[in-house]
């Protein structure tokens, strides 16, 4: 049940999604992997929207060069763990949201346990080996995962729904290289917000999500293109020869 204080706080969106929609947000548990350029804006808007439980996962410390885009980390936080820095700001922003911090690197080994309680996962990571691990865990646990990535003025986002859509490995079977990329701060801002937006739609059931669609943002001329995707039957993570297909009975 929503308290009177909550009903007031969320009144502008309750008039759109109804108290039922707000209750759905409150009972949702979002696991957010990465509290950097994508994770900060995504976490901030999900917290403001009243998602009931937010689990933050990151093993980085705040660095000076993060501050052009990672808006939950401030000058005073340099050297501190990002998950703690982010949790503090989010708790101050909205005391009605339960914030959990997990100081870990996402790996093939820990990802399934880190995400098993989630109603949905947000992939706000910064490298493809951890992203693939998160994708595997999402498939294994049957939990939707909203993937976003950026570089410079470019970004993309898609929503992976196990069994229904192409998974991350179907879409990107080979990891793109590059780390420590140049980033204009607004690029992860835009993609991170789109990830939060997809999450709110998935949780409340409004609109349609980016299922089997890759949205590509080009910040040079602020244009958006969407590309249709399909599952790859040969996919290592969800294809006919994968453990996913065997377990879910998709393999005939």
């Amino acid at each position, binding site marked *: 049940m929503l308290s009177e204080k909550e009903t007031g706080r969320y009144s502008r969106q309750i008039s759109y999604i109804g108290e039922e929609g707000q209750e759905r947000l409150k009972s949702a548990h979002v696991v957010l992997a990465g509290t950097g350029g994508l994770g900060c804006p995504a976490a901030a808007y999900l917290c403001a929207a009243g998602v009931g439980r937010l689990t933050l996962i990151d093993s980085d410390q705040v660095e000076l060069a993060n501050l052009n885009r990672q808006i939950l980390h401030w000058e005073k936080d340099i050297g501190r763990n990002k998950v703690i820095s982010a949790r503090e700001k989010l708790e101050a922003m909205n005391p009605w949201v339960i914030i959990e911090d997990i100081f870990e690197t996402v790996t093939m080994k820990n990802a399934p346990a880190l995400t098993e309680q989630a109603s949905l996962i947000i992939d706000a990571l910064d490298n493809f080996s951890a992203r693939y691990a998160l994708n595997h865990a999402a498939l294994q646990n049957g939990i939707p995962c909203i993937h976003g990535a950026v570089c410079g003025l*470019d970004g*993309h986002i898609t929503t992976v729904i196990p069994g229904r859509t192409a998974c991350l490995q179907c879409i*990107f079977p080979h990891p*793109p290289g590059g780390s420590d*990329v140049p980033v204009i701060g607004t690029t992860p801002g835009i993609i991170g917000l789109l990830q939060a937006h997809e999450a709110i739609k998935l949780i409340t059931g409004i609109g349609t999500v980016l299922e089997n669609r890759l949205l590509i943002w080009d910040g040079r001329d602020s244009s958006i*293109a969407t590309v*249709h995707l399909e599952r790859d039957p040969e996919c290592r993570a969800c294809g006919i020869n994968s453990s996913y297909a065997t377990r879910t009975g998709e393999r005939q």
Partner: protein
Amino acid sequence: MKVVVRAFARFREVVGDVNTLDIPEGSGIQELLTALGARSHECRDLLFDEEGRVREHIIVMVNRRRLARNAIASTVLSEEDEVAIYPPVAGG
């Protein structure tokens, strides 16, 4: 025949905005990418590895449909086909 090339992200900086390319009748994706690669060293480096193979991570779309990697060599283009190329980004 004329095909439309849409380049995304880094490719767009190197190849330019939407280009209409005139390629011989019966050409495939491989020929199109080779023609694009011939435009500059930078272009070729973005598209092909040292052995001259199309870089594995590049996403190629024909008429807004993702092309499976093993279909790159066998896909033949028709007049007015739209080919999009996207080098995915990875950062966060």
